[in-house]
């Protein structure tokens, strides 16, 4: 690996290394792109794609992101935007979980759904998209529905779970599994002009407590649908929270739930005790 890092340093510009050099190193040393990107970050070289992360995310934090594994449960409206955001952020391993295929009614808001991906598994479209953004990222497709029986296996070894589901009872199961496995969870949900976000850190069951209050109630999205902008907003907030958890930044979301009203352009927080 020293040889690889020497090559990257010799061909880098200051502490920046461009994509063509990373690609060249991958071919020259016959090493996968992910190992090359990790070697660069480990040598305090910043892949040029992350230049605009500078002063927001340090090289050390960029390395932590690359070493992290994030599971996204649901690859629809929220999940598509979250996966896009995580890939561009530089999360090294993304596990995309969803049993569904794209249908026409997904075109209004699901960023991975195009005329070209209609009929495809959502996880397959997610994998193809991530590979186009950055081949160094490991994308694991799990075309299955999350159940209590497979949750431990799917969530195993991950740093953060992102709840991008579309069913309150399954969200409850996910929050329970994360609480039992002591894994950080970033919850987000949308309906029409509205959304909500909350986090549950290891040792907490805040999101579980919140969602259990909803029980088997039917979400208002069944009546009012979901337009294009709501998933983009809430997924952006979820991705920011995932980033903070991975890079050990304090999150003010601890102990709060944030309700988003895009109709009145109002964010309301409730601090729960």
């Amino acid at each position: 690996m020293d040889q690889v890092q020497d090559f990257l340093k010799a061909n880098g510009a200051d502490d920046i290394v461009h994509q063509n050099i990373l690609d060249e190193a991958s071919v020259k040393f016959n090493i996968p792109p992910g190992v090359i990107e990790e070697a660069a970050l480990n040598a305090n070289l910043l892949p040029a794609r992350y230049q605009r992360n500078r002063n927001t995310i340090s090289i050390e934090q960029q390395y932590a992101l690359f070493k992290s594994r994030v599971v996204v449960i649901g690859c629809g409206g929220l999940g598509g935007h979250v996966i896009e955001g995580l890939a561009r952020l530089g999360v090294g391993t993304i596990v995309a979980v969803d049993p569904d295929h794209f249908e026409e009614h997904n075109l209004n808001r699901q960023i991975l759904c195009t005329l070209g991906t209609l009929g495809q598994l959502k996880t397959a479209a997610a994998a193809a998209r991530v590979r186009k953004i950055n081949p160094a990222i490991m994308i694991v497709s799990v075309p299955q529905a999350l159940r209590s029986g497979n949750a431990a296996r799917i969530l195993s070894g991950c740093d953060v779970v992102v709840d991008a589901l579309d069913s309150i009872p399954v969200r409850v199961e996910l929050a329970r599994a994360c609480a039992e496995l002591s894994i950080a969870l970033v919850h987000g949900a949308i309906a029409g002009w509205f959304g909500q976000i909350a986090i549950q850190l290891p040792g907490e069951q805040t999101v579980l407590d919140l969602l259990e209050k909803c029980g088997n109630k039917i979400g208002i999205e069944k009546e009012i649908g979901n337009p294009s902008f709501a998933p983009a907003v809430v997924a952006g907030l979820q991705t920011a929270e995932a980033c903070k958890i991975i890079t050990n930044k304090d999150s003010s979301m601890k102990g709060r739930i944030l309700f988003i009203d895009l109709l009145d352009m109002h964010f309301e927080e409730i601090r729960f005790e």
Partner: protein
Amino acid sequence: MHIQIKLFATLRKDRFDTDQREYTAGTTVLVVLNDLVIPEGEAAIIFVNGKHAGTDHVMLDGDTLSIFPPIGGG
């Protein structure tokens, strides 16, 4: 007694976003829901002064009651 009520999302339709109302001592959350004609199925998350509360919770003077509908879409 004075109760501040905050409604969110679709619960505001044909009602209000924030209102101050007078109730008699011993009023429960359920009484307020009935007063506002909010079916229990539409009141998913209920907070009184930032704490989770059930529909049988007894309100006190000066309490803030926040009611949210169930949101589950992705």
